Protein backbone atom coordinates (compact mmCIF):
# COMPACT_ATOMS: atom_id res chain seq x y z
CA UNK A 1 0.00 0.00 0.00
CA UNK A 2 1.16 3.48 -0.87
CA UNK A 3 -0.30 6.71 0.47
CA UNK A 4 -1.57 9.06 -2.24
CA UNK A 5 -3.21 12.42 -1.57
CA UNK A 6 -5.90 13.84 -3.84
CA UNK A 7 -6.77 17.52 -3.45
CA UNK A 8 -10.26 18.35 -4.72
CA UNK A 9 -11.07 21.51 -6.66
CA UNK A 10 -12.55 22.98 -3.43
CA UNK A 11 -9.13 22.38 -1.74
CA UNK A 12 -10.47 19.47 0.33
CA UNK A 13 -7.69 16.92 0.82
CA UNK A 14 -8.32 13.16 0.70
CA UNK A 15 -5.57 10.62 1.34
CA UNK A 16 -5.98 6.98 0.33
CA UNK A 17 -3.96 3.82 0.81
CA UNK A 18 -3.58 2.70 -2.79
CA UNK A 19 -2.69 -0.84 -3.83
CA UNK A 20 0.69 -1.05 -5.56
CA UNK A 21 0.31 -2.01 -9.20
CA UNK A 22 -3.09 -0.36 -9.55
CA UNK A 23 -3.36 2.80 -11.60
CA UNK A 24 -3.88 6.05 -9.76
CA UNK A 25 -7.27 6.24 -11.49
CA UNK A 26 -8.34 2.85 -10.16
CA UNK A 27 -7.13 3.79 -6.66
CA UNK A 28 -9.32 6.89 -6.81
CA UNK A 29 -12.36 4.93 -7.95
CA UNK A 30 -11.78 2.16 -5.41
CA UNK A 31 -11.64 4.68 -2.57
CA UNK A 32 -14.58 6.79 -3.72
CA UNK A 33 -12.57 9.85 -4.68
CA UNK A 34 -15.08 12.01 -6.56
CA UNK A 35 -13.92 14.00 -9.54
CA UNK A 36 -12.06 11.16 -11.27
CA UNK A 37 -14.68 10.04 -13.77
CA UNK A 38 -12.74 7.56 -15.93
CA UNK A 39 -15.47 7.04 -18.49
CA UNK A 40 -13.40 4.60 -20.52
CA UNK A 41 -12.36 2.55 -17.51
CA UNK A 42 -8.63 2.99 -18.04
CA UNK A 43 -8.29 2.21 -21.73
CA UNK A 44 -6.70 5.57 -22.62
CA UNK A 45 -9.59 6.83 -24.73
CA UNK A 46 -11.48 9.53 -22.85
CA UNK A 47 -9.25 11.95 -20.85
CA UNK A 48 -11.76 12.09 -17.96
CA UNK A 49 -9.29 11.03 -15.23
CA UNK A 50 -7.23 14.21 -15.61
CA UNK A 51 -5.10 15.32 -12.63
CA UNK A 52 -2.53 18.04 -11.95
CA UNK A 53 0.56 16.48 -10.38
CA UNK A 54 2.21 18.43 -7.57
CA UNK A 55 5.30 20.12 -8.99
CA UNK A 56 7.57 18.27 -6.59
CA UNK A 57 6.53 14.97 -8.11
CA UNK A 58 6.28 15.55 -11.87
CA UNK A 59 9.85 14.49 -12.60
CA UNK A 60 9.50 11.30 -10.56
CA UNK A 61 6.78 9.89 -12.80
CA UNK A 62 7.27 7.97 -16.04
CA UNK A 63 7.22 10.40 -18.95
CA UNK A 64 4.03 11.16 -20.90
CA UNK A 65 3.59 8.82 -23.89
CA UNK A 66 2.54 10.12 -27.30
CA UNK A 67 -0.95 8.67 -26.82
CA UNK A 68 -1.39 10.32 -23.43
CA UNK A 69 -0.02 13.58 -24.83
CA UNK A 70 -2.67 13.58 -27.58
CA UNK A 71 -5.46 12.81 -25.11
CA UNK A 72 -4.33 15.59 -22.77
CA UNK A 73 -5.04 18.06 -25.59
CA UNK A 74 -8.70 17.19 -25.14
CA UNK A 75 -9.14 17.56 -21.38
CA UNK A 76 -12.21 19.53 -20.28
CA UNK A 77 -10.26 21.63 -17.79
CA UNK A 78 -7.21 23.55 -18.96
CA UNK A 79 -4.14 21.51 -19.79
CA UNK A 80 -1.14 22.64 -17.74
CA UNK A 81 2.50 21.50 -17.84
CA UNK A 82 1.81 19.19 -14.89
CA UNK A 83 -1.34 17.65 -16.39
CA UNK A 84 -1.48 13.83 -16.47
CA UNK A 85 -4.07 11.12 -16.96
CA UNK A 86 -4.30 9.19 -13.71
CA UNK A 87 -4.98 5.92 -15.58
CA UNK A 88 -1.43 6.11 -16.93
CA UNK A 89 0.29 6.43 -13.53
CA UNK A 90 1.01 3.15 -11.79
CA UNK A 91 1.07 3.19 -7.99
CA UNK A 92 4.40 2.00 -6.52
CA UNK A 93 6.18 2.45 -3.20
CA UNK A 94 8.46 5.14 -4.64
CA UNK A 95 5.35 7.32 -5.04
CA UNK A 96 4.54 7.30 -1.30
CA UNK A 97 3.29 10.79 -0.44
CA UNK A 98 2.38 11.71 -4.04
CA UNK A 99 0.01 14.69 -4.19
CA UNK A 100 -2.28 15.36 -7.16
CA UNK A 101 -4.97 17.99 -7.67
CA UNK A 102 -8.28 17.17 -9.31
CA UNK A 103 -9.60 19.69 -11.88
CA UNK A 104 -13.03 21.25 -11.46
CA UNK A 105 -14.47 19.27 -14.36
CA UNK A 106 -13.72 16.22 -16.49
CA UNK A 107 -16.22 16.61 -19.31
Amino acid at each position, binding site marked *: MTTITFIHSDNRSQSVEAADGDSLMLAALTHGVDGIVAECGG*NAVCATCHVYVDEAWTAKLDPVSDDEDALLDGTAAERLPNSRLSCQIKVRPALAGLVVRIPDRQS
Partner: protein
Amino acid sequence: MNPTGLSAAVAPAIPRLAIDPFSYAFFDDPYPAHQEMREAGPVVYLDQWNVYGVARYAEVYAVFNDPLTFCSSRGVGLSDFAKEKPWRPPSLILEADPPAHTRTRAVLSKVLSPAVMKRLRDGFMAAADAKVDELLARGSFDAIPDLAEAYPLSVFPDALGLQPEGREHLIPYASLVFNAFGPPNELRQQAIERSAPHQAYVTEQCQRDNLAPGGFGACIHAFSDSGEITSAEAPLLVRSLLSAGLDTTVYGIGAAVYCLARFPDQWARLRADPSLARNAFEEAVRFESPVQTFFRTTTVDVELGGVVIPEGEKVLMFLGAANRDPRRWEQPDSYDVTRKVSGHVGFGSGIHMCVGQLVARLEGEAVLTALARKVGTITMSGTPKRRYNNTLRGLESLPITFTPA
Protein backbone atom coordinates in the same frame (compact mmCIF):
# COMPACT_ATOMS: atom_id res chain seq x y z
CA MET B 1 -18.39 -23.84 -34.86
CA ASN B 2 -16.75 -27.02 -33.82
CA PRO B 3 -16.95 -29.54 -36.65
CA THR B 4 -15.36 -32.37 -34.66
CA GLY B 5 -18.46 -33.05 -32.58
CA LEU B 6 -19.47 -31.97 -29.14
CA SER B 7 -18.68 -34.40 -26.41
CA ALA B 8 -14.98 -34.87 -27.10
CA ALA B 9 -14.34 -31.15 -27.18
CA VAL B 10 -16.15 -30.22 -23.98
CA ALA B 11 -14.59 -30.89 -20.62
CA PRO B 12 -17.13 -32.40 -18.21
CA ALA B 13 -16.81 -29.53 -15.75
CA ILE B 14 -18.30 -27.01 -18.16
CA PRO B 15 -22.08 -26.66 -17.81
CA ARG B 16 -23.85 -27.28 -21.10
CA LEU B 17 -26.94 -25.17 -21.65
CA ALA B 18 -29.71 -25.28 -24.23
CA ILE B 19 -30.08 -21.48 -24.35
CA ASP B 20 -30.20 -19.92 -27.83
CA PRO B 21 -29.03 -16.34 -27.33
CA PHE B 22 -30.00 -15.48 -30.91
CA SER B 23 -33.66 -16.48 -30.67
CA TYR B 24 -36.64 -14.14 -30.62
CA ALA B 25 -37.70 -15.48 -27.20
CA PHE B 26 -34.26 -14.63 -25.82
CA PHE B 27 -34.40 -11.13 -27.32
CA ASP B 28 -37.84 -10.56 -25.78
CA ASP B 29 -36.47 -11.17 -22.27
CA PRO B 30 -32.78 -12.07 -22.00
CA TYR B 31 -32.50 -11.53 -18.26
CA PRO B 32 -33.56 -14.96 -16.92
CA ALA B 33 -31.16 -16.61 -19.39
CA HIS B 34 -28.39 -14.18 -18.44
CA GLN B 35 -28.85 -15.16 -14.82
CA GLU B 36 -28.94 -18.86 -15.66
CA MET B 37 -25.64 -18.57 -17.53
CA ARG B 38 -23.97 -16.51 -14.77
CA GLU B 39 -25.11 -18.93 -12.09
CA ALA B 40 -24.18 -22.07 -14.07
CA GLY B 41 -20.49 -21.19 -13.94
CA PRO B 42 -17.74 -18.84 -15.07
CA VAL B 43 -17.69 -20.55 -18.49
CA VAL B 44 -20.65 -22.33 -20.10
CA TYR B 45 -21.11 -24.25 -23.34
CA LEU B 46 -24.07 -23.45 -25.57
CA ASP B 47 -25.08 -26.58 -27.45
CA GLN B 48 -27.30 -24.73 -29.89
CA TRP B 49 -24.34 -23.12 -31.67
CA ASN B 50 -21.40 -25.11 -30.26
CA VAL B 51 -19.75 -22.14 -28.63
CA TYR B 52 -18.35 -21.33 -25.22
CA GLY B 53 -20.02 -18.48 -23.37
CA VAL B 54 -19.00 -16.08 -20.59
CA ALA B 55 -21.69 -14.06 -18.82
CA ARG B 56 -19.99 -12.98 -15.57
CA TYR B 57 -18.23 -9.63 -15.44
CA ALA B 58 -14.82 -11.03 -14.44
CA GLU B 59 -14.59 -13.47 -17.34
CA VAL B 60 -15.97 -11.04 -19.92
CA TYR B 61 -13.39 -8.50 -18.76
CA ALA B 62 -10.64 -11.13 -18.87
CA VAL B 63 -11.48 -12.21 -22.43
CA PHE B 64 -11.64 -8.61 -23.63
CA ASN B 65 -8.26 -7.86 -22.09
CA ASP B 66 -6.32 -10.82 -23.48
CA PRO B 67 -6.57 -10.12 -27.22
CA LEU B 68 -3.67 -12.36 -28.21
CA THR B 69 -5.31 -15.45 -26.66
CA PHE B 70 -8.86 -14.44 -27.58
CA CYS B 71 -8.31 -13.05 -31.04
CA SER B 72 -10.52 -10.92 -33.28
CA SER B 73 -8.89 -11.67 -36.65
CA ARG B 74 -10.92 -14.86 -37.01
CA GLY B 75 -14.07 -12.75 -36.80
CA VAL B 76 -16.02 -11.29 -33.87
CA GLY B 77 -19.19 -13.10 -34.92
CA LEU B 78 -19.92 -16.80 -34.95
CA SER B 79 -18.34 -17.31 -38.37
CA ASP B 80 -14.68 -18.43 -38.06
CA PHE B 81 -12.70 -16.64 -40.78
CA ALA B 82 -10.14 -19.46 -40.64
CA LYS B 83 -12.81 -21.86 -41.87
CA GLU B 84 -15.38 -19.72 -43.68
CA LYS B 85 -15.13 -16.88 -46.19
CA PRO B 86 -16.27 -13.64 -44.48
CA TRP B 87 -19.44 -12.12 -45.95
CA ARG B 88 -17.55 -8.87 -46.60
CA PRO B 89 -13.86 -7.94 -46.62
CA PRO B 90 -12.86 -8.02 -42.93
CA SER B 91 -12.62 -4.79 -40.96
CA LEU B 92 -9.04 -3.54 -40.57
CA ILE B 93 -9.66 -2.61 -36.94
CA LEU B 94 -12.54 -4.64 -35.47
CA GLU B 95 -11.48 -7.91 -37.07
CA ALA B 96 -7.72 -7.45 -36.67
CA ASP B 97 -5.13 -8.31 -34.02
CA PRO B 98 -1.92 -6.54 -32.98
CA PRO B 99 0.37 -5.51 -34.55
CA ALA B 100 -1.85 -4.82 -37.59
CA HIS B 101 -4.63 -3.48 -35.35
CA THR B 102 -2.31 -1.11 -33.49
CA ARG B 103 -1.65 1.03 -36.56
CA THR B 104 -5.24 1.38 -37.74
CA ARG B 105 -6.53 1.92 -34.21
CA ALA B 106 -4.08 4.78 -33.72
CA VAL B 107 -5.48 6.54 -36.79
CA LEU B 108 -9.13 6.26 -35.74
CA SER B 109 -8.21 7.27 -32.17
CA LYS B 110 -6.74 10.50 -33.51
CA VAL B 111 -9.71 11.16 -35.81
CA LEU B 112 -12.15 10.69 -32.90
CA SER B 113 -10.04 12.15 -30.07
CA PRO B 114 -11.19 14.21 -27.06
CA ALA B 115 -9.72 17.29 -28.72
CA VAL B 116 -11.88 16.74 -31.83
CA MET B 117 -14.97 16.31 -29.62
CA LYS B 118 -14.38 19.75 -28.11
CA ARG B 119 -14.73 21.27 -31.57
CA LEU B 120 -17.95 19.36 -32.29
CA ARG B 121 -19.56 20.00 -28.95
CA ASP B 122 -21.42 23.28 -29.52
CA GLY B 123 -22.91 22.11 -32.80
CA PHE B 124 -24.08 18.80 -31.35
CA MET B 125 -25.66 20.56 -28.35
CA ALA B 126 -27.46 23.08 -30.57
CA ALA B 127 -28.82 20.32 -32.81
CA ALA B 128 -30.19 18.48 -29.77
CA ASP B 129 -31.86 21.66 -28.48
CA ALA B 130 -33.52 22.16 -31.86
CA LYS B 131 -34.68 18.55 -32.04
CA VAL B 132 -36.20 18.62 -28.54
CA ASP B 133 -37.92 21.95 -29.26
CA GLU B 134 -39.45 20.42 -32.37
CA LEU B 135 -40.68 17.35 -30.45
CA LEU B 136 -42.10 19.50 -27.64
CA ALA B 137 -44.10 21.39 -30.23
CA ARG B 138 -45.49 18.09 -31.54
CA GLY B 139 -46.22 16.75 -28.04
CA SER B 140 -46.70 13.08 -28.99
CA PHE B 141 -44.35 11.21 -31.33
CA ASP B 142 -42.43 7.96 -31.74
CA ALA B 143 -39.14 8.37 -29.87
CA ILE B 144 -37.29 5.79 -31.99
CA PRO B 145 -37.61 7.26 -35.51
CA ASP B 146 -38.31 10.84 -34.38
CA LEU B 147 -35.56 11.18 -31.76
CA ALA B 148 -33.23 8.18 -31.39
CA GLU B 149 -32.76 7.95 -35.18
CA ALA B 150 -33.43 11.54 -36.18
CA TYR B 151 -30.90 13.15 -33.85
CA PRO B 152 -27.84 11.06 -34.80
CA LEU B 153 -28.86 11.37 -38.46
CA SER B 154 -28.88 15.15 -38.02
CA VAL B 155 -25.28 15.30 -36.73
CA PHE B 156 -23.23 12.18 -37.47
CA PRO B 157 -23.37 11.91 -41.30
CA ASP B 158 -22.39 15.59 -41.56
CA ALA B 159 -19.55 15.11 -39.06
CA LEU B 160 -18.37 12.22 -41.22
CA GLY B 161 -18.65 14.35 -44.36
CA LEU B 162 -21.15 12.18 -46.23
CA GLN B 163 -23.00 13.40 -49.29
CA PRO B 164 -26.68 14.21 -48.71
CA GLU B 165 -27.91 11.58 -51.17
CA GLY B 166 -28.34 7.97 -50.12
CA ARG B 167 -28.17 8.37 -46.36
CA GLU B 168 -31.25 6.15 -46.06
CA HIS B 169 -28.86 3.22 -46.57
CA LEU B 170 -26.93 3.96 -43.37
CA ILE B 171 -29.21 2.38 -40.78
CA PRO B 172 -30.03 -0.72 -42.92
CA TYR B 173 -26.29 -1.24 -43.56
CA ALA B 174 -25.43 -1.07 -39.87
CA SER B 175 -28.32 -3.37 -39.03
CA LEU B 176 -26.92 -5.83 -41.55
CA VAL B 177 -23.42 -5.67 -40.07
CA PHE B 178 -24.69 -6.40 -36.56
CA ASN B 179 -27.04 -9.16 -37.70
CA ALA B 180 -24.16 -10.77 -39.58
CA PHE B 181 -22.21 -11.34 -36.34
CA GLY B 182 -24.90 -13.81 -35.36
CA PRO B 183 -25.41 -17.43 -36.39
CA PRO B 184 -26.92 -18.43 -39.75
CA ASN B 185 -30.45 -17.84 -38.53
CA GLU B 186 -33.31 -16.06 -40.27
CA LEU B 187 -32.11 -12.60 -39.16
CA ARG B 188 -28.63 -13.10 -40.59
CA GLN B 189 -29.69 -14.82 -43.80
CA GLN B 190 -32.34 -12.24 -44.65
CA ALA B 191 -29.98 -9.36 -43.88
CA ILE B 192 -27.28 -10.72 -46.17
CA GLU B 193 -29.77 -11.54 -48.96
CA ARG B 194 -30.88 -7.90 -48.95
CA SER B 195 -27.42 -6.41 -48.52
CA ALA B 196 -26.31 -5.63 -52.07
CA PRO B 197 -27.68 -2.06 -52.46
CA HIS B 198 -26.50 -1.05 -48.98
CA GLN B 199 -23.04 -2.47 -49.58
CA ALA B 200 -22.79 -0.69 -52.91
CA TYR B 201 -23.73 2.63 -51.29
CA VAL B 202 -21.22 2.21 -48.47
CA THR B 203 -18.36 1.17 -50.75
CA GLU B 204 -18.96 4.24 -52.89
CA GLN B 205 -19.24 6.65 -49.94
CA CYS B 206 -15.93 5.50 -48.47
CA GLN B 207 -13.99 6.81 -51.47
CA ARG B 208 -12.02 9.98 -50.87
CA ASP B 209 -13.77 12.04 -53.53
CA ASN B 210 -17.14 11.49 -51.88
CA LEU B 211 -16.14 12.75 -48.43
CA ALA B 212 -16.44 16.45 -47.55
CA PRO B 213 -13.31 18.30 -46.38
CA GLY B 214 -12.92 18.56 -42.61
CA GLY B 215 -15.09 15.53 -41.80
CA PHE B 216 -13.99 12.31 -40.09
CA GLY B 217 -13.82 10.55 -43.48
CA ALA B 218 -11.52 13.12 -45.05
CA CYS B 219 -9.36 13.07 -41.91
CA ILE B 220 -8.94 9.30 -42.24
CA HIS B 221 -7.89 9.64 -45.88
CA ALA B 222 -5.42 12.39 -44.92
CA PHE B 223 -3.52 9.82 -42.87
CA SER B 224 -2.77 7.97 -46.11
CA ASP B 225 -0.87 11.06 -47.31
CA SER B 226 1.41 10.98 -44.28
CA GLY B 227 1.96 7.22 -44.55
CA GLU B 228 0.27 5.96 -41.36
CA ILE B 229 -2.10 3.93 -43.57
CA THR B 230 -2.18 3.13 -47.28
CA SER B 231 -4.64 4.68 -49.72
CA ALA B 232 -6.20 1.23 -50.10
CA GLU B 233 -6.77 0.95 -46.34
CA ALA B 234 -8.41 4.36 -45.89
CA PRO B 235 -11.80 3.48 -47.44
CA LEU B 236 -12.10 0.39 -45.25
CA LEU B 237 -11.43 2.48 -42.15
CA VAL B 238 -14.11 4.94 -43.22
CA ARG B 239 -16.37 1.91 -43.58
CA SER B 240 -15.82 1.14 -39.89
CA LEU B 241 -17.41 4.47 -38.97
CA LEU B 242 -20.32 3.82 -41.31
CA SER B 243 -20.81 0.36 -39.79
CA ALA B 244 -20.47 1.16 -36.12
CA GLY B 245 -20.99 4.89 -35.74
CA LEU B 246 -24.66 5.48 -36.29
CA ASP B 247 -26.96 2.59 -35.43
CA THR B 248 -25.19 2.00 -32.12
CA THR B 249 -25.93 5.55 -31.01
CA VAL B 250 -29.52 5.18 -32.22
CA TYR B 251 -29.86 2.21 -29.86
CA GLY B 252 -28.01 4.05 -27.09
CA ILE B 253 -30.22 7.14 -27.22
CA GLY B 254 -33.29 4.93 -27.55
CA ALA B 255 -32.19 3.03 -24.44
CA ALA B 256 -31.74 6.26 -22.49
CA VAL B 257 -35.17 7.65 -23.40
CA TYR B 258 -36.76 4.28 -22.62
CA CYS B 259 -35.11 4.32 -19.18
CA LEU B 260 -36.19 7.88 -18.42
CA ALA B 261 -39.76 7.08 -19.48
CA ARG B 262 -39.90 3.98 -17.28
CA PHE B 263 -38.20 5.37 -14.16
CA PRO B 264 -39.78 8.73 -13.25
CA ASP B 265 -37.72 9.03 -10.05
CA GLN B 266 -34.53 8.98 -12.11
CA TRP B 267 -36.02 11.44 -14.60
CA ALA B 268 -36.78 13.77 -11.68
CA ARG B 269 -33.17 13.58 -10.49
CA LEU B 270 -31.90 14.37 -13.99
CA ARG B 271 -34.28 17.31 -14.32
CA ALA B 272 -33.16 18.65 -10.94
CA ASP B 273 -29.51 18.44 -12.01
CA PRO B 274 -28.97 18.46 -15.79
CA SER B 275 -25.23 18.03 -15.23
CA LEU B 276 -26.08 14.36 -14.63
CA ALA B 277 -26.97 13.99 -18.31
CA ARG B 278 -23.71 12.42 -19.39
CA ASN B 279 -23.75 9.88 -16.55
CA ALA B 280 -27.44 9.15 -17.12
CA PHE B 281 -26.60 8.22 -20.71
CA GLU B 282 -23.64 6.09 -19.61
CA GLU B 283 -25.82 4.26 -17.09
CA ALA B 284 -28.38 3.57 -19.83
CA VAL B 285 -25.59 1.98 -21.88
CA ARG B 286 -24.78 -0.25 -18.90
CA PHE B 287 -28.41 -0.99 -18.08
CA GLU B 288 -29.62 -1.85 -21.61
CA SER B 289 -26.25 -2.71 -23.20
CA PRO B 290 -27.22 -1.82 -26.80
CA VAL B 291 -24.37 -4.03 -28.01
CA GLN B 292 -25.24 -7.32 -26.31
CA THR B 293 -22.58 -9.74 -27.52
CA PHE B 294 -19.28 -10.21 -29.32
CA PHE B 295 -17.30 -13.35 -30.10
CA ARG B 296 -13.60 -14.03 -29.89
CA THR B 297 -11.65 -17.12 -31.12
CA THR B 298 -9.04 -18.89 -28.99
CA THR B 299 -5.53 -18.95 -30.48
CA VAL B 300 -4.22 -21.56 -27.98
CA ASP B 301 -5.61 -23.93 -25.36
CA VAL B 302 -6.44 -21.54 -22.53
CA GLU B 303 -7.58 -21.82 -18.93
CA LEU B 304 -10.42 -19.49 -18.04
CA GLY B 305 -12.47 -19.58 -14.87
CA GLY B 306 -10.90 -22.90 -13.88
CA VAL B 307 -11.68 -24.75 -17.12
CA VAL B 308 -9.70 -25.27 -20.31
CA ILE B 309 -11.00 -24.02 -23.65
CA PRO B 310 -9.19 -25.66 -26.59
CA GLU B 311 -7.55 -23.72 -29.42
CA GLY B 312 -9.77 -22.64 -32.29
CA GLU B 313 -13.01 -22.33 -30.31
CA LYS B 314 -15.47 -19.47 -30.47
CA VAL B 315 -16.12 -17.71 -27.14
CA LEU B 316 -19.27 -15.59 -26.86
CA MET B 317 -19.10 -12.67 -24.43
CA PHE B 318 -22.39 -11.47 -22.96
CA LEU B 319 -21.80 -7.75 -22.36
CA GLY B 320 -25.35 -7.18 -21.14
CA ALA B 321 -25.07 -9.99 -18.60
CA ALA B 322 -21.69 -8.74 -17.35
CA ASN B 323 -23.15 -5.27 -16.96
CA ARG B 324 -25.78 -6.69 -14.59
CA ASP B 325 -23.57 -9.21 -12.78
CA PRO B 326 -24.33 -8.88 -9.05
CA ARG B 327 -20.72 -9.98 -8.39
CA ARG B 328 -19.66 -6.60 -9.81
CA TRP B 329 -22.63 -4.24 -9.43
CA GLU B 330 -24.80 -3.25 -6.49
CA GLN B 331 -28.48 -3.45 -7.39
CA PRO B 332 -27.56 -4.29 -10.98
CA ASP B 333 -31.16 -4.27 -12.21
CA SER B 334 -31.77 -0.68 -11.10
CA TYR B 335 -31.28 2.26 -13.44
CA ASP B 336 -29.48 4.87 -11.32
CA VAL B 337 -28.40 8.14 -12.96
CA THR B 338 -25.87 8.76 -10.16
CA ARG B 339 -24.22 5.33 -10.27
CA LYS B 340 -20.43 5.24 -10.55
CA VAL B 341 -20.62 3.40 -13.82
CA SER B 342 -16.95 3.43 -14.85
CA GLY B 343 -15.81 -0.05 -15.74
CA HIS B 344 -18.99 -1.23 -17.46
CA VAL B 345 -18.35 -3.17 -20.66
CA GLY B 346 -21.15 -1.68 -22.77
CA PHE B 347 -18.48 -0.17 -25.02
CA GLY B 348 -16.25 -3.23 -24.61
CA SER B 349 -12.88 -3.07 -22.87
CA GLY B 350 -9.21 -3.28 -23.78
CA ILE B 351 -7.64 -2.60 -27.16
CA HIS B 352 -10.89 -3.01 -29.10
CA MET B 353 -12.99 -0.82 -26.79
CA CYS B 354 -15.32 1.30 -28.95
CA VAL B 355 -13.14 3.86 -30.71
CA GLY B 356 -16.19 6.08 -31.25
CA GLN B 357 -17.32 6.10 -27.63
CA LEU B 358 -16.65 9.81 -27.30
CA VAL B 359 -19.00 10.58 -30.19
CA ALA B 360 -21.66 8.35 -28.61
CA ARG B 361 -21.29 10.08 -25.23
CA LEU B 362 -21.39 13.52 -26.81
CA GLU B 363 -24.62 12.66 -28.63
CA GLY B 364 -26.14 11.10 -25.51
CA GLU B 365 -25.13 13.99 -23.30
CA ALA B 366 -26.49 16.50 -25.81
CA VAL B 367 -29.90 14.84 -26.04
CA LEU B 368 -30.29 14.23 -22.32
CA THR B 369 -29.16 17.75 -21.45
CA ALA B 370 -31.75 19.21 -23.82
CA LEU B 371 -34.44 16.94 -22.35
CA ALA B 372 -33.52 17.84 -18.77
CA ARG B 373 -33.67 21.56 -19.48
CA LYS B 374 -36.76 21.72 -21.64
CA VAL B 375 -39.08 18.78 -20.90
CA GLY B 376 -41.35 18.49 -17.84
CA THR B 377 -42.75 14.98 -18.17
CA ILE B 378 -41.90 12.01 -20.37
CA THR B 379 -44.69 9.45 -20.55
CA MET B 380 -45.14 6.36 -22.66
CA SER B 381 -48.32 6.84 -24.66
CA GLY B 382 -48.39 3.37 -26.21
CA THR B 383 -46.81 -0.06 -26.01
CA PRO B 384 -43.13 -0.17 -26.99
CA LYS B 385 -42.24 -2.61 -29.77
CA ARG B 386 -38.92 -4.45 -29.85
CA ARG B 387 -36.59 -4.44 -32.86
CA TYR B 388 -34.81 -7.76 -33.39
CA ASN B 389 -31.11 -7.92 -34.21
CA ASN B 390 -28.54 -10.65 -33.52
CA THR B 391 -26.22 -8.23 -31.71
CA LEU B 392 -28.09 -5.02 -30.91
CA ARG B 393 -30.75 -4.66 -28.23
CA GLY B 394 -33.32 -1.93 -28.70
CA LEU B 395 -36.76 -0.86 -29.79
CA GLU B 396 -38.55 -0.46 -33.10
CA SER B 397 -41.16 1.90 -31.67
CA LEU B 398 -41.52 3.90 -28.44
CA PRO B 399 -44.61 6.13 -28.36
CA ILE B 400 -43.87 9.10 -26.11
CA THR B 401 -45.65 12.24 -24.98
CA PHE B 402 -43.67 15.25 -23.73
CA THR B 403 -45.00 18.15 -21.72
CA PRO B 404 -42.89 21.31 -21.48
CA ALA B 405 -40.98 22.22 -18.32
